[in-house]
């Protein structure tokens, strides 16, 4: 059987049931493909065993880049390339460089991080998402289990899901 095509879906009515469900399902030895929710559910990363995101690191790196860029730009233009006497100040008037440096740092940090986020999460205007169930953007939490990735039979999996408190258990096949 081809992977990433045929799924069993467990639909949960609210986040507490979902969290409990995830716990039971994983204990039941079922490998969860992914859980889809209409809003962020606290503690779900732990339940699913996700590592915390390292996007903040990206933000930091981009920020540093911004700082360097800003200083290079300002020193390069005002001190190195074309020094001018302005208001009797030195050719390297450091205090006046601070605001722009700060702004560029924040700008690059923010944009860099968000850019990274869009890339890794594959979010783009022309992106075509795989909708397991339309209600996952409304009020339902859906747990998707990839049949191909599980040794167990469909029935067994469905049983586990029902037991875990899913309000419905359906099949979803993509072609």
């Amino acid at each position, binding site marked *: 059987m081809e992977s990433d095509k045929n799924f069993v879906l467990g639909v949960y009515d609210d986040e507490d049931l979902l969290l409990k469900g995830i716990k039971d399902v994983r204990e039941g030895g079922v490998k969860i493909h992914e859980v889809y929710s209409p*809003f*962020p559910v606290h503690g779900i990363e732990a339940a699913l065993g996700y590592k915390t995101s390292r996007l903040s690191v990206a*933000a930091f790196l981009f920020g540093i880049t911004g700082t360097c860029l800003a200083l290079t730009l300002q020193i390069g233009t005002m001190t190195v390339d074309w020094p001018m006497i302005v208001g009797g100040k030195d050719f390297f*008037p450091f205090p006046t460089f601070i605001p722009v440096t700060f702004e*560029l740092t924040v700008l690059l940090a*923010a944009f860099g991080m968000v850019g990274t986020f869009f890339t890794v999460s594959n979010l783009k205007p022309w*992106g075509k*998402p*795989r909708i397991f169930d339309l209600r996952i953007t409304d009020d339902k939490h859906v747990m998707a289990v990839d049949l191909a990735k599980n040794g167990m039979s469909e029935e067994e999996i469905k049983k586990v899901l029902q037991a875990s408190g899913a309000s419905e258990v359906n099949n979803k096949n993509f072609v």
Partner: protein
Amino acid sequence: MSGTSLRLEIKKNQTLKKIQIMHAESVVRRPLVTGGKTVHDITNDICSRVEEKPSKSWLLAITLSLSVLIIAGYYVYRLLWHGIGEWGLNKTVGWAWDITNFVWWVGIGHAGTLISAILLLFRQRWRMAINRAAEAMTIFAVICAAMFPVLHMGRPWLGAYWALPLPNTFGSLWVNFNSPLLWDVFAISTYFSVSLVFWYIGLIPDFATIRDRATTKIRKAIYGALSFGWDGASKTWSRYETVSLVLAGLATPLVLSVHTIVSMDFATSVIPGWHTTIFPPYFVAGAIFSGFAMVLTLLLVTRRVYKLEDYITIQHIELMNIVITITGSIVGVAYITEFFIASYSGVEAEQYAFLNRAFGPYWWAYAAMMTCNVISPQLFWFKSIRTNIASTFVISIIVNIGMWFERFVIIVTSLHRDFVPSSWAMFYPKPADIGVYMFTFGLFFTAFFLFAKFFPVINMAEVKSIVKATSEKTDK
């Protein structure tokens, strides 16, 4: 419920709310969402606004704002075609309404990001119902603000890009990083783009909701594109959370920096009344002050028009009124401090500048500023007033008027009589001054009404995440 909470419950409302502000996670709280809404209700309530046919009141509003935009646009044309002379400015008063409006709009543009960012860091959940609209307001306000630095130039067609450090064909011709005006360019554009991103990130899941409810192809296509192919996977959600948190962390100092830098336009100059080190904190406080006032003005209208009483509750309004009272008082203290410093400085021109503000030809502007900004918010010490929709609405508008006058007072009264008495002059506005100001109003409200119709005015995803914990039904 735990014993502590039981004991807390019998205490007076006042104390309750204090605690609830201090740690919002407290179990004991008045519901943030009333009317026993379920998660599905939320989706319905919010999305239906977008999906239904536009209401009469909305059509009326948009027509009004559009016509203002177009009529006032005539003065923008005159300004661009004939020159800045269309304004009432003169050799002595080189800035008046233009920069006043600029600072005023930027100030208003502070609430949004502040609410989302700072309140997010402080885990103030009550923000969730209002941050979407507040952020939208920020975006539009900053757009209006940004118009003035461009329009007020003698040669905007050049200035619009000469103010950027672009490599150019003129040889080694660069911008002057000593100039606070250039800092503004960076501050405002950064603030704008980061706020925009922040706002949009928040919108993505809600767009997805609309997409999945979409009945027509077009709507599906449009909101599909807008939602960036969001699928609500937990992995994405967890990244999403990190992103919003870090963005909030970045945006917070940014919010503070914007008005700080704007205030430096004045603080770094030599003009008595401008040359004041207290400006940065004082401007930031003023910005939050006016920002919250504007948010209230708008929310109270939206709330009524869209029947969102269950989401934007009296509690929200009360909390915001408290912020207004605090910042208003800070501003008041700043005014007084300025006077003290002026007299303490022993600088002739400085002392005169401040006496002239209060008792000179522009005393009325100063009086207006004082009444609107310092006195009126103090009324919010009375619970009856700060929990009353009507009074809140009125005061929120008064505060905005007051903050406009504050900027007018700072800019015009300082310039019109500075060091050399021979050059002292008065400033009288001309039709174009008012016209261009009106234009930005038209722009602002047109944009806001469009937003209110086609975008989800409340952050569904966030509200959903708290509905279970806070909705009356589940509380019982």
